[in-house]
């Protein structure tokens, strides 16, 4: 008996995003068709300006498409209201940034708890889960430190914990190793791969490097806003 095809977690049809700057129209992505199944670890590859970050922003609900259709985890993002996008970012996706983007005034534990707090979850279970995640990421000794007291690798692992706190189905990472040395970069990629293997999370990584090549189930190459 043939194994059933896994359900699509991400579906894009004719997805387009352009930016109007004065009289100039700059294309971010242009009529992208895409389908990513649940449990995949996909690498978005391409040179700087190819549209990787734009596509990731759309997948993360940080931006809205100029045209086309986009569904993630059953939610239609192309026509979602601001409030639905807020809810989407709280519950469906977790985001990891190249520059870590931790809140400088919050401790490591508080940074991780933040999305839980925004999602309206109770404090105690969120803290407990954050502590678990941080222990798993070897940051148990750093709970009360602020980001300025951490190394780059530690900051990115904190960001991974933050992305996982609400147990999202999809993890999106924008150049997660871009600001790290090769050893810490490898640790981060290993962690993402393990997450994909152990909990079946769908992971999309935008990168122009080759460090994550071995961990990916699929590569998607972008050039001038189009999938090649």
């Amino acid at each position: 008996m043939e194994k059933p095809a896994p359900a699509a977690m991400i579906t894009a049809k004719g997805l387009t995003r352009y930016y109007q700057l004065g009289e100039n129209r700059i294309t971010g992505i242009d009529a992208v068709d895409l389908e990513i199944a649940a449990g995949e670890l996909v690498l978005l590859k391409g040179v700087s300006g190819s549209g990787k970050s734009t596509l990731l922003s759309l997948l993360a609900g940080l931006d809205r498409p100029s045209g086309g259709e986009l569904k993630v985890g059953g939610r239609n993002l192309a026509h979602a209201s601001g409030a639905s996008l807020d809810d989407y970012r709280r519950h469906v996706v977790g985001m990891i940034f190249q520059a870590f983007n931790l809140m400088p005034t919050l401790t490591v534990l508080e940074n991780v708890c933040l999305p839980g707090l925004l999602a309206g979850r109770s404090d105690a279970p969120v803290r407990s889960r954050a502590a678990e995640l941080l222990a798993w990421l070897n940051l148990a000794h750093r709970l009360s430190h602020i980001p300025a007291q951490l190394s780059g690798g530690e900051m990115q692992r904190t960001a991974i914990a933050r992305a996982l706190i609400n147990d999202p189905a999809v993890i999106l990472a924008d150049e997660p190793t871009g600001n790290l040395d090769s050893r810490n970069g490898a640790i981060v990629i290993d962690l993402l791969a393990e997450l994909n293997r152990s909990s079946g999370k769908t992971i999309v990584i935008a990168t122009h490097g080759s460090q994550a090549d071995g961990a990916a189930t699929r590569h998607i190459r972008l050039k001038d806003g189009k999938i090649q």
Partner: protein
Amino acid sequence: MKRLAAAARLFWWFSIRNLRRHQRRTLAVVLGIALGAAVFTSVRLSINASVDAFGQSMDRIAGKADWTVVQPGGRVPEAWVARLLRHPAVESASPLMKTYVRPVSGPDAPFLLIGLDPLLDRPVREWSTGGAADASSQGAPDRAENPESGDALDLMTTPFTLIMGRRLSNTLDAGAGDSVVLFGPRGKVSFTVINVLEDAGLSRADGGRIAVTDIATLQEFTGGYGAVDQIDIRLRPGAPSDAVASLRALLPDGIQLARPNQAKETGLTMIRAYQLNLSVLSFVSLFVGMFLVYSLVALNAASRRGETAILRAVGASRRMVFALFLLEGAFFGIVGWVLAFPVSSAMVGLLVEGIGRTISTLFVRVSVDRLALDAWEVFLSFGVTLAVSVLAALEPAYEAMQVSPREAMASARSRHSVQRIARRLFAAGGLFVAAVWPLSRMPAVSGIPLPGYVATFTLFAGFSLMSPLFLGIISARLSPLLRRLAGEPAYLAGRYLRDSGVRVAVSVGSLITAVALFTALVIMIHSFRGTVDLWVHQTVSGDLFVTPRLGEINQHRSPFAPEIARALNGIDVPADRVPFRRFYLTYGGVPYQFEAIDFETFFRHGAYIWIDGDPVAARRKLAAGRGVIVSEVFANHTGLALGDTFRDLIDGHLVTVPIVGVIRDYRSQGGVAFFSLERYEAIRIEGGGSPDAPGWSGIRFFFREDETPDARAARVDRLKAAIVAQCGDRVDMIAGADLRQSILRVFDETFSITTVLLLIALAVAALGIATTLTVLVLERSRQLNTIYAVGGSRSQIRRMIIWEASLMVAAGELGGLLCGGILSLLLVFVVNRQSFGWTFIYQVDWGALVLSLPLIYITAMLAALPAVRRVFREPPAMILREG
């Protein structure tokens, strides 16, 4: 509840922690708001204390009376007491007289001596000795059984006895059995104190500085035989509804049935404009503090765009971000308000006496004996401080909620949008400024110059909104010139400010507001003082002013006794005499003074400052008694103008004449109408008045004008000696030069509070400059250190910061001067006219402005010093390495 706790935690994490990281700038803003709130609260508490003290004093004197019978400008014949008591609806009628007296020895301050019928007054007013005195020593056999009645009988049967208020008794250190010698309208008289009142009811009127005597004694003391100031009546319970109408019908022309609180309302009317204007002025510091809040919340919103984007990226909604920044403003308001409390208490102590003195001098006598912390005032102070702070945070919060979560991955907005915002704000500001003209043409609302105030704040708002583009244009235009004059640092400073947009302009806006206020008040006070100076030298002219003893404080209720008037008229000196009669009245509810004066003699030495009417034609009509001239205040408040008919009952005699001129007059107790004394006397005598008692309220003496000041002073001294020889201590005298000087001194003292409030507003603006510059330096430390790394010297970079400050202050002063010029016109011709009814001859005090603007510049530059010192606090290498 869970959501609230989560919101509170988020606010703590996101906002409070950030404020804690930047303690100095947070402290500067909180202090600015605290200072503003403290000024607002303490000024209001102080002025309200005076107003309350006045109101309570009037209520205690009014007692439980339902109605009061009075004769405006005169006295009510005593016979009306019996007639009123016979009316079936009247339960009690109590005659009352009041006069201020001064003890010959001891403290110099006058006190209120109330004359009443101790028996008839019982149902009307609350006053009691409680039998506190050593009753057995007072003589009457029934005193031991009923000491209260004993005191009443003693007052009635023993002339020149009084019962003293407890507080007055303490002040004068006089008790039962002691004698006090008092100066009254008829000279010195010795009174015996028969007891001391309990500290309640009437005893607490006028701050407790009162004494009660029998009305017959007071009549003899003041010379007001057969007449009383008023008769207070109480109606029987269940009196028919037409009782008041039937009482009114009973009274002859000139005698009126008034509500007992009418005198209170008249007094409050006079204070109200002062109260309102001082309140508005006290709000200015808070208004300037608003810029501080705006400045810091806007800076936080701008410098934390990245963090805001992250917050949005991890799930915060736009509303949540908006609330966070709004709460930041609220936080400044709440903490500032809490800190304002101790500052307010210290300020109130200083202000309450000064404001009370000013009100007593200018409007009505007040004596503040306690300062109550009114719940409404506390709520108002909190509400206004919070509202101002939240309002200030509204725009930055709105800007912050526009931050897209995508910015977590992308760069911030372009310069194009900053310029566009500046242009949009400029257009909005232009509309605000344009609205000032139609607003200034609108009439006051219920006597409150609301359109004037709205125009004032519209003007401030307009100039503040225009400041970003204004700063940009000034910087852009000056940059090339600065490069030639002061080198690259000045050029870079100009370029930076040109592109800095709204954030820097907020501080410039606050400086514009403070400088505008300064400029406007300098011009207004100078114009006011210049006009008052002209007025006192032309209209309040004369070498010696003679009035009955304590005549002024007693509103000239008791004119000169006939023998004194004759004596003054008969003194053989080569001087012109200008007698006058003054009445304190109301015209359609507007308080004013009716002054009958010998115009013919007056015009030989003095003049009026005409606003409307032909002075030459008017003088002829005035001398013939065919017209009246009214002050601008009277005209503005009553709505009467040149050519209209003036019609009023003066001491029971009807005066109906056309208004032949409108003049400037700056007495603070309402308007004034001048009429011919000769004609008034004729009307009075036609109406049955005695031809032997001219009833002058005072007389001015004028010497020849060609004499030297010293020779005139010597003549005045000789005249004074002659008057003392003829009249003894029954008159008050003041040399014209001294009177004019004292008027100008009161003027200067009145505006000293204004000056203090203004300096505080300037200090708050300087705090704004210091905060903005420090934050700008901190924000750009990487950029500034890069300039250092590529070859700029420390001195060049510091000069650049100084030039930035310099340009900001220059733009603030220039904008402030422009805004202040318009504001001064608003204050002189709109707010003052609508508040007090007067305007002034507009004159700019160039000297003060030329002297002050460099001082403000230096102060603001000193405020910039901490920022300059911060530039190289961290090693450049460290800053450039950090990302």
